[in-house]
């Protein structure tokens, strides 16, 4: 009697496994026909954001035009104006060596990590004027970071093309505090 019941339950479990396998097959087939299929390797929301941001800064859909660049005079006024958010797009070792007073490090190299670190400041800065700089001369980091910020919905983003080089050569104040 007990043996028969156990055998019956075994049959039920085997059928259940079959049902589970069939369900998984259905799910996988349906997923293939979705417009945005779920990747089989799951990524947490944080990992997805990091990936999105890294991709964004490599090739931002918004490009900085000539009108969105400023010279040293305007940049000095922006640094003095407390409303303007000044961002340093250079890699963190260069930022730590010295940067424009009040500037925050949002490097192109570690954009996703820095963006998450500065999230509390950036969350309230969508409408604030933002100026980004990098080493100066032919550096592109500031333009890529500014382009990524524009793509993320920041409305007033400008680039100081002279960058760190011009600031330092002008003998202006240098900060070493983060």
């Amino acid at each position, binding site marked *: 009697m007990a043996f028969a019941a156990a055998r019956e339950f075994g049959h039920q479990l085997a059928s*259940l496994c079959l*049902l589970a396998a*069939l369900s*998984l097959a259905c*799910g996988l087939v349906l997923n293939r026909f979705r417009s945005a299929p*779920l990747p089989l390797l799951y990524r947490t929301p944080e990992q997805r954001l990091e990936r999105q941001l890294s991709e964004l800064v490599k090739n931002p859909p918004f490009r900085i035009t000539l009108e969105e660049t400023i010279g040293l005079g305007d940049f000095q006024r922006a640094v003095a104006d407390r409303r303007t958010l000044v961002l340093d797009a250079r890699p963190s070792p260069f930022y730590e060596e010295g940067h424009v007073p009040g500037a925050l490090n949002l490097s192109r190299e570690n954009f996703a990590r820095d963006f998450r670190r500065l999230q509390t400041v950036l969350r309230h800065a969508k409408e604030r004027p933002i100026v980004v700089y990098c080493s100066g001369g032919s550096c592109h980091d500031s333009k890529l970071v500014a382009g990524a910020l524009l793509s993320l919905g920041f409305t007033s983003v400008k680039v100081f093309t002279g960058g760190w080089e011009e600031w330092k050569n002008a003998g202006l104040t240098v900060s070493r505090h983060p």
Partner: protein
Amino acid sequence: MRDSRSAVILRKDPRRWRLLISLMARISLGAIFIYAGATKFGDPLAFADSIASFKIVPNALVSLLALGIPPFETICGSLLVIGLWRQVAALGALVAIVTFTVALLSALARGLVVDCGCFGSGLVSVTRMRLDLVRDLAIVMIAALVYADSGTTRA
């Protein structure tokens, strides 16, 4: 004349109510599972996030579960409603709902505030989790009743 006699016999048959309750429980359970499966089909990523937030299964299995559970629920629910392969479908529903309940209990015990994702995505709060737990326990009871009955009755 013969018909009215049969009706009287049926009315007096005490098994009639048991059959009726059993039938209603099976169809209700089936409907709940069809609904639960259908709400998850639309946004598998949100369901995957819900599964991951429980911190029970490794990330490598999250997508497979997120893709497999909704069809499993829908198939079990449909079989229960149609009355086909009843015992296996009832066992499937019972195993699924017990697993969800244990996962929810373990999340509450670990102090996690998660969206159970049982019927699509919703608000996330401890109160909501407790309410979900009460609802899941009620479904566990219905599923157990349906499973126990599916082997003995023809409802």
